[in-house]
């Protein structure tokens, strides 16, 4: 077990295992630190800057981002000082400059007392450039269908050569982790579409479930599951059944007893 370190968060004595980030330690103590780019399943990247905290004690007095800064013996952390609030409001205003209609961002802004932004650009792009989608596609799915392009203000997320991706498997993890819902996944009829502001990233034909006949997943995605989950165990995915039918099959169906004894709760 990792050795524990003692630190103070908002005047509260806290113990946390070495290597833990301040954000995680604060969360464990029930202290709220706003963040957009942090996701438990992903490696932190520190892009949104919202999780700033004021640090002193073991480290030179400074403002750091808590999703990357690790706990240290004797650290004094303040998450809600005037200085932090002021800086956080500025960051929120900057984020709102490009995404003034993002519901998640507006919620966070009103929580932190930001009513309007001085940096409105006239654009409305819900993407806050946190890079969660790029990270999940690269590190967890292992496909790397998404990438960053350009620099500075023009930086954005897209596919290779900004066309429909050949590599995307249509799993929808990017849409799942997006903090502002800028990447969307849509199943209509037997087609799945993954798209962002102004660009369709990928399109798929959905395979039909063998039980109920409802289109439910793209072939590439099923192939990937086959490859990663079944083949490694020497198995093969044979019954292409949608999750709902799987759930139904797992649920015991009542069986009529032959001698009028009422329904049995499960199949014999």
């Amino acid at each position: 077990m990792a050795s524990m370190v003692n630190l103070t968060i908002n005047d509260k004595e806290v113990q946390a295992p070495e290597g833990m980030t301040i954000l995680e330690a604060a969360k464990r103590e029930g202290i709220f630190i706003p963040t957009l780019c942090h996701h438990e399943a992903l490696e932190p990247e520190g892009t949104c800057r919202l999780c700033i905290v004021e640090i002193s004690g073991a480290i030179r007095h400074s403002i750091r981002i808590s999703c990357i800064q690790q706990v240290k013996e004797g650290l004094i952390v303040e998450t809600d000082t005037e200085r932090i609030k002021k800086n956080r409001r500025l960051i929120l205003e900057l984020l709102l400059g490009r995404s003034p209609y993002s519901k998640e961002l507006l919620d966070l802004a009103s929580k932190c007392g930001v009513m309007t932004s001085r940096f409105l650009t006239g654009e409305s792009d819900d993407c806050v450039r946190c890079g969660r989608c790029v990270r999940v596609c690269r590190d967890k799915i292992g496909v790397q269908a998404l990438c960053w392009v350009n620099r500075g203000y023009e930086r954005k997320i897209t596919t290779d050569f900004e066309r429909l991706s050949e590599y995307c498997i249509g799993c929808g993890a990017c849409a799942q982790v997006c903090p502002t819902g800028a990447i969307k996944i849509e199943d209509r009829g037997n087609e799945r579409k993954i798209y962002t502001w102004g660009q369709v990233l990928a399109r798929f034909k959905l395979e039909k479930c063998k039980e109920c006949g409802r289109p439910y997943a793209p072939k590439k995605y099923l192939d990937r599951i086959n490859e990663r989950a079944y083949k490694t165990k020497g198995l093969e995915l044979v019954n292409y059944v949608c999750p709902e039918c799987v759930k139904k099959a797992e649920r015991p169906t009542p069986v009529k007893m032959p001698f009028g004894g009422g329904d049995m709760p499960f199949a014999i």
Partner: protein
Amino acid sequence: MDVAAIDAIVSKFPEIKGNLIGILHEVQNHFHYLPEEELRYLSKKTDIPITQIYSIVNFYNRFSLKPKGKNEICVCLGTACHVKGAEKVMNALEENLHIQKGQSTEDMNFSLEEVRCIGACSLAPAVVINEETYGLVTPNKIPLLLSKHKDG
């Protein structure tokens, strides 16, 4: 698609992963830009995802996805050159080549780019043509400069 050229370039490098930018430089020097098909082939050959290559190509100004002329003209518009009248040099080049900055001539002989400070401030205004630096350029020296490189 020029597979042989890519193969030759890649074989020059003992290690691929850390040398991607070096490889891309060589590819750019060979084709004068980075053609999509060749980049896709490079990605397959080196096992580096095409998205990663695309990211890098987009990040650096030096790389171009659009075809560039044989002779690449870079006009320095850094502070010193700007003060010394680089704008006039740029205008003269645009007039002589009948193109705007960032474009290439129709015969693909020249392409015109603006750059920020090439570290030759004492020679301001400076112009770089194919890695050769020309200092103290004036608008009336432009035709001579261009004729030097016409067939190069």
